[in-house]
């Protein structure tokens, strides 16, 4: 079923449409949020908030691009706000953000047993937030640089630089891991 139709049905109160949208996008959104926040529990909360918002205001929602793009942007915005809140509380620079150490599960604790993937998440946690955001939204969410730039309120050139820096840094971290 097309997204436009699903939204229409959701607006009409269709539980089936809600379930279909949820099944279609939820896991990918959690994966993206978990990468951005380095915490699966928080990622699930963020995605849940976005879905609650969708349920609450489906009738006000007009699809101009795609539902997936809309949901991803919402998740990215919420994740950024959370990240900012966390930084202002802790006064920690972006470069110093460490993987979550709370009781909630960090992605590297929840992943399917694939060492490469564990390393990727650990490495991503070490990236400055904007670089990580550019990398994840580009590679995992398949967003266009133009869309990421808009979301980051910056130029495409800056977003491209962040993406390239992020990727290079990831490469250097992961290759140094290999050397070890």
């Amino acid at each position, binding site marked *: 079923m097309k997204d436009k*139709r699903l939204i*229409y049905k*959701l*607006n*009409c*109160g*269709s*539980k*089936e449409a*809600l*379930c279909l949208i*949820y099944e279609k996008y*939820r*896991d990918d959104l*959690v*994966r993206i949020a*978990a*990468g951005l926040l380095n915490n*699966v529990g928080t990622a*699930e909360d963020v995605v*849940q908030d976005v*879905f*609650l918002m969708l*349920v*609450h205001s489906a*009738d006000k929602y*007009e699809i101009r691009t795609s539902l997936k793009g809309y949901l991803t942007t919402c998740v990215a915005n919420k994740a950024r706000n959370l990240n900012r809140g966390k930084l202002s509380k802790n006064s920690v620079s972006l470069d110093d953000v460490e993987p979550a150490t709370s009781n909630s599960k960090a*992605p590297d604790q*929840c*992943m*399917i047993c694939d060492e*490469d*993937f564990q*390393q*990727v*998440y650990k490495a*991503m946690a070490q990236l400055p937030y904007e670089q990580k955001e550019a*990398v*994840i939204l580009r*590679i*995992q969410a398949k967003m266009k640089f133009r869309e990421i730039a808009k979301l980051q309120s910056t130029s495409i050139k800056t977003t491209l630089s962040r993406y390239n820096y992020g*990727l*290079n840094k*990831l*490469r250097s971290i*992961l*290759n140094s891991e*290999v050397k070890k």
Partner: protein
Amino acid sequence: MRSADDIKRLVEKAKIKLDPEVKSAALEELINKLEKTKQSKPTSRPDIWRIIMTSKITKLAAAAVIIIAVMIGLNQFGIKVDVSSPAFADVLEQVKKATSVYYKENFQVGDNSWSQEMMINENGVKRLILNKNMVMLFDSRNGINLTLDSKAKRGFRTVIKPRPEMKLFNSLDFLATRHKKGIRFVGNEIIDGTETMVYEDLQPLNFSCTTIWVDPETNLPLRVVSETIPPDDPNYFPIKMLSLYSKDFDDDSDLSCGGNLCGNCTPRYTKKVMTDFQWNIDLDPALFDTEIPEDYEKHEEKLSQPDETYLIEALKFWSEMSDGLLPIDVNDLMDPNTIEPMFIKKFKKGQNPYQEYNNAADFMDTFRWGAIFVERKIVSQKNWHASKEPVYFGQADKPLYWWQIEDSNNYQVIYGDLTIDEVAEDEIP
């Protein structure tokens, strides 16, 4: 050393394992929220028609329409066999391997009940025996539906969209759960002297429960009971069934036709009991021949697409039955209690009951295509409107409905004289 492309691939493929219980609890929360939102909203939106598309083929059996509805409903989510219970996965595996099946079905829908028999061959061709005179064949792989009435010696052959992937298992894919933990083993029970394993598939979101009794020796179902129980909630609309019966035209052929009309509704109480399973038996290929026998009256047609012409015909019919007044509330077009008497009034003349019933049934298809057009092309658009004042047939200056054309800034307007015009946004009424 990993290249940049390797890193991209790793990031792209990186997956995390998510807790399905958290997921389903979160979904429950969303559904509750949706319920509350729905209750607090005014019910100003029109109901949508959800019509099981029929052609002449279904004029012969309302029962078959419901079967099609059930099959469409069950097939639309595709097949998923990754159930949590390994034992049930074995059952699905055996069903997937089956080369043929025969079973009896007993349906109870609302206050009506009936029985029928089903045979399915390896290619997924279904032979449905409705009664001693009526047989229907569904060859989805080749896109052919056939109805044979041996009493009247008539055959109706309809061309539909082929589904080349169709096979026996697709017809029974409702045995596979759509949710990972949907099916659970609930115990053992003796059925006809055989100790069976009983599985239950609760799908609260669809208000349904399916129980499957499995022969542990063959790992194949012996009995299946599916029940759909609508919630006791006034916010749900029961499915509206538009039906015509030949007896209403004083014809004793015991024919009927119809389809479901539905808005934001849940099904009526439905119970399907499947028994007398015979798996992997030899079925005569002649039973699955989709050609109309030589000595039968042949009716062939291709399923058409709904367009404005059907809507115009439906509105003309409506105005004829309402002293020229056109329906300004699209919900009126979806009320079987209003529409059915109109059909009887229009077509019952008391001269040739069989022909009069058939004329009504013929036109019902047109009416329904008009309704499908309303659903697909008008009310599904964000910007659509209906006149707030009465509009009579022939009033060329009075717009009845207008709606934004998909992927365009222009609008289509249908006027009281049932002409349709395309206008720019600043010209809409």
